[in-house]
């Protein structure tokens, strides 16, 4: 009997940027730095995807200012992705952005066999809408709970509390219990990553789109409630990013 006509397929790995495009992002070149960081990270992401053919890396992006909109609405294979620059204007509808993503994390359209999605929230300020309602809707989705949720805070005005709410408090408690040494120092990816200049931002984006995507691509099972690992065992942050204030250039933002 010949092999049947079944659809064998690698597993989709959805990678979604949630980008703050409020007016403050125009200040001090933050928006320009973000566009550049994402664009520069793409070749590395393509390489990681190529090195892990069992995962099909699909990228999307949400921009939020007065409202939240899909900047890249179709899950796009990373090798086909062409980054169109985001523009800064308006306020910070972060809650609406989470609602928008939540609608895409129900199953369907999410595939049952997808790998845990990687979601990266980048913001320099405070939500101006009902963030809590957005987060609640978002976290009701099973795939949101399963996701690897990372947050990058741009500058000292970013609201670290809401970014931590997005990442989850359980995971930071776990990281603290384990001790920060294992994560390489004072900065853990279970907390918002604080970028105070374009270099640090580029390094975080690079790390999320390569090291984290690589880790999320690997078919490795884990025990339920693996206390210190979050939804995947996150790779360590490179040593230069452990303390961005000391390590990578001047404080600009």
């Amino acid at each position, binding site marked *: 009997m010949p092999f049947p006509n079944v659809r064998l397929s*690698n597993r989709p790995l959805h990678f979604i940027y949630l980008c703050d495009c409020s007016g403050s992002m125009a200040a001090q070149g933050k928006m320009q730095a973000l566009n550049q960081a994402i664009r520069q990270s793409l070749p590395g992401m393509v390489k990681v995807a190529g090195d892990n053919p069992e995962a099909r890396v699909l990228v999307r992006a949400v921009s939020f200012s007065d409202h939240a909109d899909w900047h890249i609405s179709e899950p796009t294979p990373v090798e086909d992705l062409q980054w169109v620059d985001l523009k800064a204007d308006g306020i910070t509808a972060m809650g609406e952005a989470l609602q928008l993503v939540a609608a895409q994390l129900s199953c369907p359209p999410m595939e049952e066999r997808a790998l845990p999605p990687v979601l990266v929230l980048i913001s320099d300020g405070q939500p101006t809408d009902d963030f809590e309602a957005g987060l609640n809707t978002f976290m009701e989705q099973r795939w949101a709970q399963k996701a690897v949720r990372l947050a990058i805070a741009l500058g000292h005005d970013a609201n670290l509390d809401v970014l931590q709410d997005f990442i989850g408090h359980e995971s930071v408690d776990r990281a603290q219990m384990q001790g920060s040494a294992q994560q390489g120092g004072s900065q853990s990816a279970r907390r918002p990553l604080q970028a105070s200049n374009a270099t640090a931002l580029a390094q975080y984006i690079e790390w999320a789109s390569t090291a984290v995507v690589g880790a999320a691509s690997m078919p490795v099972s884990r025990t*339920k409630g693996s206390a210190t690992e979050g939804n995947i065992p996150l790779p360590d942050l490179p040593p230069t990013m452990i303390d961005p204030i000391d390590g990578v250039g001047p404080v600009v933002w």
Partner: protein
Amino acid sequence: MNWQPPIHRSLIGASHRRKGVVCQDYSLSASLRSRSGVPIKLMAVSDGHGGARYWRSDVGSRLACEIAIKEARKALGRGLLNWSAPSSSNLLKWQQWQKQALPEKLIETWRLAVADDWQRFEKPAERQAEAFSVYSYGCTLGLVVMTPHWWCCTGLGDWDLVRVGWNSHSNANKAELINREENVGLQGESTFSLCKNDALQHFAERSTTESINRGQSPFALLLSTDGVRKSCAADTDFLTLAHYLVSKASIKRDGGECHELDEDLDRITTEGSGDDVSVAIGINGPLKLEDTGA
């Protein structure tokens, strides 16, 4: 109707092969007789979690299968299985055994065995100072016991059990997914595990027993690790694949490890999830399967 000797096979995943990681899956099958001479078949699969934290999970999965078969063999071998259909009270006794007594014994013996392995094996230099942790050996386990009048399964983790047999509604052989891990409350790629303290509770959730009635149509049971189902785009594909693998197994009469499945398993992992893949198949009666639609 009697069960044919079960077959089993594990194959390293395409991703693990490429990265130089050992296969963390293991599978095993056995045929024996009870004290009263009743033929019994057993099959088990286990999936070591892999990754840095579970770095001895290839050993954990091997020990899990070996201990599952050994402990089931011990209890069933000395148990008074009847040649005739068991009474409901007798069947209930076996149900309790596979739900409680067997898992208790399995977990206890597996924990001792992995601790013993830790004492004995030569650790690499970078692990010399590491204290023993049962987590290093973390793995899942699925076990199926097949007797002439009933079969049962137990275990924990993300294995799947498919039944392939005649369906009177569709008037055709049909594959059905009859036992899978419910992923409510599970995050990321997480699964229940032998290395966790709540293991016993999760055995109970997956334990089922079914009688085999006189005159029942032949059927097969396929037990697989998650790498197989996660390689398929949808459950319908997985079930078609299960049907096909059972049809291949039905040709092999001598049981045991089945290298004839290697080509198929390799295709599954290479075109699919890249994960290690294991299957174990038991067939009850002279099952005849039609073409699966190549």
